[in-house]
Structure formats: structure tokens, C-alpha cells
């Protein structure tokens, strides 16, 4: 315990100068995120400041992304303190590129054919125009899936995330029946992944490695947030469809743009899916108005099995 305290203090001091940057999008991460704790090595290195002064920092900060201490199961079940995650999906920007899906499937080793993010071709009524709707787990505040789980294998965390403990799950699939958004997938087969990944200890934050006979789904990538990065779908989308953020900070970001969450929802008439069910999702949608792309641009990317739709 003492060690973590120390590492936090040291981080807060050195954090200002030693924060890693994510070069992928040219964005620096938030050095002040108070929950970020870095696993220190105890070894120091001397380096130069811009003024030519010599400073000492822990070797841990030499990595592009410093290693984070491994979390215990109870920490993973509790969640990141002080956070309340939310996502805004801007339907006017989506053209069914499915980069979100492939990035997510790749990072979580989702079984081929299955996916945690589905980009659905939606049409609300005959006269209304079709649009593309990426669908993740809604991370409901009244999660029907969690209500029915007999063994606490799926649970609601303090930060709003509904996560799964694949080491606990008995595979009864009641949660799948209970979820009105059909977001959950089941590992009918042994999941395919490199052996070194399969050997890893399961983490409720990375949802890796998936295990045969258990349920999997979108986890909002809290491991990425801990690293000061964004969920894989958010950073993979070239059109900035996904905006991820913290309600407690009242802001959401897609990496390139950051909005005040409350303003965005108010100005663009954000809504949630199936509000009448009372599930209180954490995922908001911005309606497909003034679109960046016509619906048709996404058709070529549609799953051939779904073409009979519309």
C-alpha cells in the first residue's frame, strides 16, 4: 500500500514533466488524472531539461506509456474512482466504415464472425431515411443483464461500466436474453488468439483473454482510460463518430475534438436507445441530421448476409 501511495505522489510531482504522449493522434494525455498510478522501478535516470538543468526521473517513465500496476479482481470490480463514463455516437458522421468494429475485434480477440460493436443499418419507418447506427454495450445505469446474473459475473462498476468476469461466468446466458440491445456475444467455441495472450490472466478491464463457454461484450476499455488513452473504437474511427468521456468532467472527446457533453446533447438533441425500458444507458446518440455522408456510401461495406434488409 505504501508503495502505491509513493508512486502516486511521485507521479504527481514528476507527472507534469514526464507524461507520455500518444503520437498516434498527436494528442498528449492528461497528466493530472489523479487515478493514474505508475509502477515504479526504483531506478533513476538523469536527463536534461530545456534550460540545460539536470533532472532525475524514475526509469518507468522512459516507456512511451508507463506500466501500470496490475489490478486485483476487487479493484477491477470497483472501477476507476471519481469517473462516470459515457459515450456519444454521432450518427450524422457514420458511413459504415467499420473501423471501430475491426479495431475492437482485433484488440479483444473476438471470435471471427462475431463482434462487440455492430454497425446496424436502421430505418425507423418506411418513409424515413435509413442510417447507420454503431451499437456498443449501453453500460446501462439500470442494467437488466446485471440484475439477472446469478453469480455476480457481470457487474456494474462505480465508474458506470458494466463489465464481465470471465473467470466467474457459468455460461447460463440469462444476461443475453435479458439485454434488449442484443449486445452480448457468447464464446461458443474456444476463442482464437495467440498462445501468449491465451495464457494471460483474465482482466475484467481488458476483457482479455476471452474464454470458451462464457459471455463477452464491449467493456468501454477502462484499461485504455487508465493509460490516458481512449477506447479502441474511438481512436480507430476516422470520422470521429465516437465521442468518449466522463460525465463528471462534463466532456466527451473523439481524440481530435472535445465537446462539453451537456452542450452537445442539448444542441444536437442527443437521445438514448429504448428510453421507455428504463435501462438508463450511458451511450447517447446524436440524430442522423445534416449528415457528412449519404447512407448509400456505406452500403458496399455492409455484411452480405444483411443485404436483404431494406
Amino acid at each position: 500500500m505504501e508503495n502505491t501511495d509513493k508512486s502516486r505522489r511521485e507521479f504527481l510531482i514528476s507527472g507534469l514533466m514526464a507524461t507520455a504522449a500518444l503520437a498516434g493522434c498527436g494528442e498528449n494525455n492528461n497528466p493530472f488524472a489523479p487515478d493514474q498510478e505508475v509502477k515504479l522501478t526504483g531506478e533513476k535516470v538523469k536527463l536534461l531539461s530545456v534550460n540545460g538543468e539536470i533532472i532525475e526521473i524514475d526509469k518507468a517513465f522512459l516507456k512511451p506509456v508507463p506500466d501500470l500496476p496490475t489490478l486485483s479482481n476487487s479493484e477491477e470490480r470497483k472501477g476507476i474512482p471519481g469517473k462516470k463514463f459515457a459515450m456519444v455516437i454521432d450518427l450524422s458522421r457514420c458511413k459504415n466504415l467499420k473501423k471501430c468494429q475491426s479495431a475492437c475485434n482485433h484488440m479483444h480477440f473476438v471470435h471471427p464472425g462475431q463482434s462487440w460493436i455492430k454497425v446496424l443499418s436502421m430505418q425507423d419507418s418506411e418513409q424515413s431515411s435509413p442510417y447507420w447506427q454503431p451499437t456498443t454495450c449501453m453500460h446501462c445505469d439500470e442494467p437488466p443483464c446485471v440484475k439477472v446474473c446469478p453469480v455476480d459475473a457481470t457487474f456494474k462498476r462505480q465508474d458506470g461500466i458494466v463489465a464481465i468476469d470471465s473467470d466467474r461466468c457459468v455460461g447460463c446466458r440469462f444476461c443475453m436474453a435479458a439485454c434488449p440491445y442484443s449486445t452480448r456475444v457468447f464464446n461458443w467455441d474456444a476463442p482464437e488468439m495467440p498462445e501468449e495472450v491465451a495464457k494471460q490472466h483474465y482482466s475484467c478491464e481488458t476483457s482479455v483473454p476471452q474464454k470458451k463457454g462464457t459471455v463477452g461484450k464491449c467493456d468501454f476499455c477502462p484499461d485504455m482510460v487508465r493509460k490516458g488513452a481512449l477506447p479502441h473504437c474511438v481512436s480507430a474511427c476516422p470520422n470521429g463518430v465516437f465521442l468518449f468521456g466522463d460525465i463528471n468532467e462534463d466532456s466527451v472527446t473523439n481524440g481530435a475534438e472535445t465537446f462539453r457533453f451537456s452542450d452537445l446533447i442539448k444542441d444536437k438533441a442527443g437521445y438514448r436507445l429504448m428510453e421507455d425500458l428504463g435501462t438508463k444507458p450511458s451511450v447517447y446518440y446524436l440524430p442522423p441530421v445534416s449528415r457528412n455522408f449519404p447512407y448509400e456510401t456505406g452500403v458496399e461495406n455492409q455484411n452480405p448476409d444483411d443485404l436483404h434488409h431494406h
Partner: protein
Amino acid sequence: MKSKNINNIGRAILLLVMAMPLGAAAQQDSVKPKLLLNVGYYMNNNQMMYLLANTKAKISGKFKQVPGIAVTVYLDKESPDQLIGKTITNEEGLGKLIIPASLKSVWDASAQHQFIGSTEATKEYESATAETDITKSKITVDTISDGETRKIAVSVSAYNGKDWIPAPDVELKVGVARIGGSLLTAGDEATYTTDSTGKVSAELLKKNLPGDEKGNLILVARVDENDTYGNLKVEKSVPWGIAVKPNEHFFDQRTLWSTRFKTPIWLLAMAYSIVLGVWGTIIYLVFQIIKIKKLGTSGEL
């Protein structure tokens, strides 16, 4: 060259084997894909400098980050005594380097520097080089509270060898630090540009932003990928936010979705009373059977 050609088949097979687990398209021909190396200069809060080497390659039309490449970076001159260091790029194709204290004299000698990065040719990629020129610079952020309005003053200055002089026409972002390293811009514009005095003044138009538990916000001013100055960032904590107390109560509730340790009392009462009632009866009946048994066996004796 000749002996290399003989090895090509072997190399192609090796490539195939190595590329498959990565899910990358295998390169069938003997032409190695071009590796793109970039060395970025980063400076945070006018103190800590570091370099980020990034290796990527265009594979079947798409840029992919290339991991596992050894990058060597020198300061100004490719000579062993001006070596900054070596790094191997990680999963995201990134490697981080700091400028070691031993290069102090070289660093102090000039206001402009060049970072020279290079990679050796590998089995998969040709060698690559990169040069990044920077001018030493500083960025500061301050606040001006003018009655109701809250302004953020940013100034960028460059070193000319003797003095720190204002740096005009530098594009930068000013705002509040948010999740995932994002920046919520202070005003309506996404970016600002420094004037002839190297200054930018941005009003924080977003009122009542939630801060931390004490109501502190972190102001950020950031220069991204500037051709002259690289990447600069400065932060300042200000008490301009609304204090946000995380709602712990929400998770202490006893609800139907809570864990087994937070079952609603009414449900526990119902469940236990039913279970105890019925199992009490069952146990009573088992005792009745024992009683019958005792009656039977005592008769035998």
C-alpha cells in the same frame, strides 16, 4: 547482391510466417516495404524534454504502426559522443528517448538543434532515417481574472542564443485538460495563433465546468507538431471549476442490479422467510421419519 537473391525465397517464407500472426498482408515479392521513421520533440512544462520515435509502414494501402524496430538517435551529429540513445518501438510503433545529462555541453552550445534518427535494415524493412530540427522554446500560461470574465494568457518564446524572444505566428490550443489527454477548448475556436508579442489571450467561455473535488481545473496550452518548435505543452491548475463530489451513494444502494453483498432488504426478507419456512417444514418432516424409525426399531428390541 547475388547471395541476397538466393535468400529471397527463404525470406519470403519467413515473412509470411511472421506476418500471419499479425494479420498483416504477407509481402510476396522481394521488395521490402518502406519504413517511415519520425522523431518528434516534446517538451512539457518547460522542463522535461523527450523524443518519441515512431515507425510505421504503408502495407496494402494503409499505414500500420511497426513494432520492434531499433531506432538510434543522435543530437546534431552522427558521432558516438553525441548519441542520445537507442530505443525499440513498442506495439504502437513508439519508442521514447530522453536527452541524457552527458550531452549538456552540446545542448547548451546552441539555440537550434537537430535530432538525427536512423534504423538499420531488418529482414522485413529497409533502413530509414529522419531528421528533426527544433529551436529551443518555452511556453507559459497565466490567468487574468477581469471581474466576471476569466482569461487565459499564453506566451511562447524562443531562444536566440542569448535571450528568450517572443515567438509570433505559432498555432496553439488553449483550454481545459479532459479525459484521455483531450483538451476542451476555452473559447469557440479550436486553435489560436500568437501575435507579434508571442502572446495569445483566450477567454474561458465555458462556465461552471466541473473540476476535481476541490474545484480545480487544469488549464492547458499546447503546440502540436510545430515545424520550428516541435510539441510544447504547459499546464496550470486553477480554482475555476465546480467542485465535484463523486456520487458514491449510487453504488452503495441496495438494488436489483447490485452485487450479492447489496441485495435489497425486502428481497432478502422475502427469500429468507420463504426458504426458512419451507426448509423448516422439511427438517420437521425428516425428524418425523426418524421418530417413526425409532418407534419401529425400539419395538424390535
